[in-house]
């Protein structure tokens, strides 16, 4: 056993693979937040007047808001004036038109992260809108998408090129008054992704963005807006890693999805931001507002997420099911280790007739972490025949961690049916014995059992993500047994 223990100890000590800082000169704002900063930000981005007004309105409202404290997480107070609100790689005036023009330093960064841009472009057929800090630096596959009529660009470009679409939909799902962090994001969002799929178009490829937080002390405020017009379909992948850093970094993103009649949006996330070291030092604060609105009949929005990173995760990808027969889905695996804290779940708001939703949530806690599912299922008085099924399971590894479930269920309609189930258990001795007996080492056994526990969610992920997610769990769980 001595060798095993040693190996396990080594594994425990292994540091975060993706932790490194790319040395690129960044054109960064001085820390601080006021109306001037917002005006400068807007000016740099050459935004139309309406955008600046919108930002300032959000900022003024945000000043009156109070930081929420109801979540099951704890963290030192954030000084919003110690954060820099803009950081872009140099040479913003000549943005690269193709990969050859991209700064080789950046490309190396992506390579280290295992994002083979070239390969992806050629083999996987995935267009990548890679966000390096705050400005999009490389966008591939724009042309075939353009041929299909799909708009896939950074939100800054969209603000300039498609102001009417942005103005029509931005903030309709997550208004700037929604919550503290959404308000902050509305005021200072730096960049993000914009997708518009026109009527009847099935997006020819999976769209994907890799987020990356780089420059020190820069909170990243992503804003994503996806609109699926009547009868269209789009699948969007989001994945992220971040370099190692001692100071906590704030990430307050907003994602808005809009599905019109018969449209479908599938949104998948693999989140692997720096979770802090084994003593709970450092790590990203991930306070995200994600929400989709099924405003059309027969529309469908599906969220799939694998959350293994961040010191604190606080997000509730939600669906507002307004259109008749619309469908909402939420599949989630949240894994916490060491001192990580996660308070995540979903909201399914049933407003229209015969709307249905499914929630499958798997929480895994190890080390001294805390993992909470918090969800709301609500049936409005007009949600005739609405249906929900919820299952949230928790798995505990080690006796120092916590697993919590806070489901809110509210029904105002007698013909609506909701079912909710939750269980909590640990990796059982019998399962471990069975694996060990067959010569599987404990690390691998736990990983196998955990992968089995999450299978229901993984099968919802696009293929390449599913593989990555399985690996990610394995890496994240290292050192949890022994």
């Amino acid at each position, binding site marked *: 056993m001595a060798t095993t223990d040693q190996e396990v100890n080594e594994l425990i000590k292994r540091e975060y693979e993706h932790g490194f800082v790319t040395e690129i000169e960044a054109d960064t704002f001085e820390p601080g937040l006021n109306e001037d900063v917002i005006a400068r930000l807007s000016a740099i981005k050459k935004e139309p007047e309406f955008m600046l007004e919108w930002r300032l309105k959000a900022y003024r409202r945000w000043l009156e808001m109070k930081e929420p404290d109801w979540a099951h997480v704890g963290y030192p107070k954030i000084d919003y004036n110690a954060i820099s609100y803009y950081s872009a790689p140099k040479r913003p005036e000549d943005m690269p038109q193709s990969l050859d023009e991209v700064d080789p330093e950046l490309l190396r960064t992506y390579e280290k992260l295992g994002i083979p841009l070239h390969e992806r472009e050629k083999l996987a057929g995935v267009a990548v809108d890679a966000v390096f800090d705050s400005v999009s630096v490389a966008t591939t596959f724009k042309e075939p998408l353009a041929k299909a009529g799909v708009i896939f660009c950074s939100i800054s470009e969209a603000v300039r090129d498609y102001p009417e679409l942005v103005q029509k939909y931005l903030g309709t799902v997550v208004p700037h008054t929604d919550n503290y962090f959404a308000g902050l994001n509305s005021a200072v969002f730096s960049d993000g992704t914009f997708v518009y799929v026109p009527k009847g178009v099935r997006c020819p490829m999976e769209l994907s963005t890799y987020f990356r937080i780089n420059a020190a002390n820069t909170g990243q405020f992503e804003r994503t807006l996806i609109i699926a017009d009547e009868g269209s379909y789009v699948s969007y992948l989001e994945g992220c890693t971040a370099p190692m850093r001692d100071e906590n970094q704030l990430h307050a993103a907003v994602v808005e999805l809009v599905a019109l009649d018969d449209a479908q949006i599938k949104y998948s996330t693999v989140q692997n931001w720096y979770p802090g070291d084994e003593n709970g030092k450092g790590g990203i604060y991930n306070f995200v507002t994600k929400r989709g609105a099924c405003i059309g009949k027969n529309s469908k929005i599906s969220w799939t997420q694998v959350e293994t990173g961040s010191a604190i995760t606080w997000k509730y990808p939600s669906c507002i099911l307004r259109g008749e027969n619309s469908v909402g889905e939420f599949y989630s695996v949240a894994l916490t280790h060491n001192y990580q804290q996660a308070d995540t779940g979903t909201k399914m708001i049933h407003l229209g007739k015969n709307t249905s939703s499914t929630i499958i949530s798997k929480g895994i806690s190890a080390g001294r972490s805390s993992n909470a599912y918090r969800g709301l299922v609500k049936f409005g008085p007009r949600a005739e025949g609405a249906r929900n099924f919820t299952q949230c399971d928790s798995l505990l590894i080690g*006796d120092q961690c916590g697993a919590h479930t806070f489901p809110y269920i*509210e029904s105002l309609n007698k013909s609506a*049916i909701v079912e909710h189930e*939750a269980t909590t258990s640990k990796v059982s001795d019998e399962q471990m014995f069975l694996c060990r007996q067959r010569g599987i080492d404990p690390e691998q056994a736990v990983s196998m059992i955990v992968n089995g526990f999450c299978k229901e969610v993984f099968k919802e992920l696009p293929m390449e993500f599913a593989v990555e997610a399985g690996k990610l769990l394995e890496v994240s769980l290292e050192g949890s047994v022994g």
Partner: protein
Amino acid sequence: MKPAPTLLSSAFLQPAGQALPEPLLALRRQRGAALVDMPLPTRKTENWKYSSKYLKLTDEIAGSLPATGKTGSALAVPGYKVVFINGVMVPEASEYPDLNDILIQRFGDLSEAEANELAERLDSTLDTRTVQFAGLNSARFEDGLLIRLKPNAVLDKPLFIIHEVTASTSGSAFPRVFVDAGRNSQITLVEEYFSSGQEAALVNTVTEFNLADGANVTNIRLNMDGENVQHIGATGVRQQRNSRFESHCMGFGGPLRRHDLQVWLEGEGAECKLNGVVVTQGSQHYDNHTTIEHVAAHCNSEETYRNIAADKSHAVFNGRIHIHKDAQKSNANMNNKNLLLSTGAEIDTKPELEIYADDVKCAHGATIGQLDEESLFYLVSRGIGRREANVLLTMAFINELVAQIPVDAVKDTMQTRLNQFFDQAFQEV
């Protein structure tokens, strides 16, 4: 319209009835002082989220109801009986044995030493931060019942505590019960709440149980207060090794009905079983909040609650299971099913798990739905009237729990009230 008050009015902090031993009066003063400027719950107060809008603490109902000595109804009960009217015990109407090993005393009759001991233990079973209104009872109680069972004592028949409120004028009542069950003792305690009179009233109760090793306590709570009565009750239970607590909370709705039940499993092998049935109609409300604290290892808890909401009524259930850090091998099961009989009625449920130990088995389930059309069709196609079929299926939804009530007389009372409910709820079917 006047804006709703945000703080507890000082009118609520003036206790009447000074016929208590000094230590209890001192306790009352102390608790009262702590409530000065107590904020009233709002929609933003998490544990009053769904119910704060029903809470109407007007100065009109702040004063104590007069302690009249006449009971409005002569109840025959199959057991022992203690009658409280407006929170004050009526010895003439009460019948209970004078035993050596089971002491049943009203607070007013306690010696200074006994009162001292009691004052130290009152409120020890409830977390007053989450059960805000238990403190109000402690600041206002005018009388109370102390039941002490010596080791191995067994009360041979159920003890009924009849809490009657005579609301011929507006006011409030603050009944208080404290049960101390010694080692391996046994008792069945039935609490019935009902009211007479039509004026607006508030009933604010606290019942506390302390179970020593191996004690076995069954508590039945039947709430039948009238449409003019706001009821805010709390029950706190502390359980030691191998003790067993069984609770049956049966209630009918009203303008405001709130019951907080907190159970602390503090000794290994302790076990609790909590059953609840709530029935609401018209524009009634009922809110049950339960908390089970698994503090010690090897404890079991089993919780089953059913709500039925008809018309425009509103039923709320919030169950919380908290497994503490060292409570390994805990077994906890919570189940809440709800039946919505009409659109316009509202049901809110929140089954929570908070777990800090890894070797545990915890599960909860919750559903909200309506009567199954196919089952209705099955019955109707066999010649059973639609109305009767509805009644049958609704009764079947809660019968599992009603049948478990261990005292037949309570079961019968419950059934009578349920029949009235069915008559009204299915009038138009």
